[in-house]
């Protein structure tokens, strides 16, 4: 039985050492190189006495960053990816949470990394430590001692209190996910992935690990290409990319402007998308352009390791209809629970809860918030069994497929990113000169709308938020009010705010 994610790498390096593993178009690494450099990094950690610790990886998105992830695992540690796209305030919160002894950087990030306040933390350059003499004996020993419930990464997700939550996943949950996902989407050694999602979320597991498992190839597509649809499709064709797992907005960017009339993806046969509603009109354009391709809707929270449910689109949908999230991958179960903790009746709405090996370990250094979301299965009183409460409301349709209905709270999905509106509000509230604040989401126009009361101008507020919030969390519309509307019991009246917003047109 496989109990270590690097078994994928150890096996493939023997079978296909010289095949291209990861490329960003300019920089490329073969499996042999990934293996060698990751073992150098692991050996470096061992020499420094860093073991079973979080190691922050702060690098430009590149094949080297991927190799650094595996290097951290080879050293018996777990990686914490952070990115230059993150504002420094958020990075500091993450560093405070994980208390890492080491930040792994490259030339583009070293200076920034040095500016953060972390006690007893060293900074190392990838290019230097990737040359460390490999200590096979030590690495093999670390490998043997690993247990599949040991963490391998922590990724941070939005938290409503303003402090991001670090979701820690282990070998076992990742292996389970990769095995099931690969089966469902039928990856193989000829798969050529075009990665779109950032490396600091669990979304990139879909490409990074199956690439090792099968000896496939992943292209990390440059971010700027997602603003220029024709060039993007030409890139897919140039590299013979046949499989993409993208957020819906990246797919609609291509279909919405008649790109398919200029150029079509020639090799693409597998299209997975998730986390957002796919507008049926756009979805049809994709299906017309690629009638032979398999389209699969994926659903799952970071806490359940990557994705949890899938639906292979096998019928026509009417405009305005939502594509179901289908059913769970094998080896996990969805419980649909009512407020009383009872199973929802057929057709009744309930909270989507996940049970199974794919559950992550919880929120790192955060027992309180872990205990709120990772709870004892209320349907089982016989022995300890943890389920994860997603906060998503779902129901089963007449065909027995799971359908996403709404959120219980103020969490939204915006451009594929999971955001707590509460986190936006807390950060706005911390800006000097802001007295009151409330966020709403315009799902139709894909806009986060912020209302506030304060002395600051709208422009000044935007400027101040850039140091606090990631770009995708900065409100798209910022509107200053003389007074905030309140409900009878003294809460901010979001319904009225929505009405004000809709009247503006």
């Amino acid at each position, binding site marked *: 039985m496989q109990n270590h994610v690097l078994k994928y790498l150890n096996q493939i390096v023997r079978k296909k050492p010289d095949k291209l593993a990861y490329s960003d178009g300019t920089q490329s690494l073969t499996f042999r190189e990934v293996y060698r450099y990751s073992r150098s990094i692991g050996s470096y950690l061992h020499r420094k006495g860093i073991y079973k610790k979080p190691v922050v990886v702060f690098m430009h998105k590149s094949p080297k960053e991927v190799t650094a992830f595996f290097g951290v695992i080879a050293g018996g540690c777990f990686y914490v990816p952070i990115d230059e796209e993150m504002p420094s305030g958020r990075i500091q919160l993450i560093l405070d949470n994980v208390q890492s002894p080491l930040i792994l950087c490259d030339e583009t990030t070293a200076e920034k990394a040095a500016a953060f306040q972390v006690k007893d933390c060293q900074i190392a350059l990838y290019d230097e430590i990737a040359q460390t003499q490999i200590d096979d004996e030590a690495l093999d020993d670390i490998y043997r001692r690993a247990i599949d419930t040991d963490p391998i990464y922590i990724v941070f997700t939005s938290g409503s209190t303003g402090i991001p939550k670090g979701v820690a996943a282990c070998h076992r949950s990742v292996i389970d996910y990769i095995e099931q996902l690969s089966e469902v989407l039928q990856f193989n050694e000829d798969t050529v992935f075009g990665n779109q999602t950032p490396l600091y979320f669990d979304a990139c597991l879909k490409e990074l690990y199956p690439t090792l498992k099968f000896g496939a190839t992943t292209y990390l597509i440059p*971010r*700027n290409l*997602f*603003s*220029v*649809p*024709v*060039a993007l499709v030409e890139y897919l064709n140039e590299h013979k990319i046949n499989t993409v797992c993208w957020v819906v*907005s*990246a797919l*609609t*960017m*291509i279909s*919405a*402007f*008649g*790109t398919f*009339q*200029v150029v079509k993806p020639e090799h693409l046969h597998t299209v997975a998308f998730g986390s957002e509603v796919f507008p049926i009109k756009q979805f049809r354009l994709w299906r017309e352009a690629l009638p032979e391709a398999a389209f699969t809707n994926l659903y799952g929270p970071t806490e359940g390791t990557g994705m949890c449910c899938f639906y292979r689109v096998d019928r026509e949908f009417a405009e305005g209809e939502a594509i179901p999230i289908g059913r769970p991958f094998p080896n996990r179960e969805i419980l649909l629970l009512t407020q009383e903790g009872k199973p929802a009746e057929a057709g009744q709405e309930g909270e989507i809860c996940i049970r199974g090996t794919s559950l992550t370990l919880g929120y790192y250094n955060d027992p309180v918030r872990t205990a709120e979301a990772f709870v004892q299965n209320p349907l089982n009183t016989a022995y300890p069994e943890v389920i994860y409460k997603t906060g998503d409301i779902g129901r089963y349709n007449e065909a027995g497929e799971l359908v996403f209905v709404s959120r219980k709270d103020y969490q939204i999905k915006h*451009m594929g990113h999971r955001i707590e509106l509460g986190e936006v509000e807390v950060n706005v509230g911390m800006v000097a000169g802001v007295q009151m604040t409330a966020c709403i989401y315009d799902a139709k*126009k*894909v*806009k986060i709308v912020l209302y506030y009361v304060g002395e600051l101008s*709208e*422009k000044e507020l*935007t*400027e101040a938020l*850039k140091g606090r919030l990631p*770009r995708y969390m900065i409100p*798209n*519309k*910022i509107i200053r009010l003389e007074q905030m509307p309140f409900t009878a019991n003294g809460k901010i009246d979001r319904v009225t705010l929505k009405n004000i917003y809709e009247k503006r047109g």
Partner: protein
Amino acid sequence: MEELLEILSDLHPEVDFEVEEHLIDDGILDSLDIVNLISEISEEFDVSITAKDIIPENFNSAKALYSLIQDLGEE
């Protein structure tokens, strides 16, 4: 040009669109911005921007974008 600058600064109040010349190359406008921008422009100027027009040369500056709108308007 006035209307265009207004649409742009509505999108990113912190950017000086009269001087910026690398909106796409520097990643100031991301793909969502482009989508929003195109929908606002088509409403305001009654032109339709399609995939072949969405290239950095047309979107790197407000000036370039404005001349694209004018070209499309004449067609």
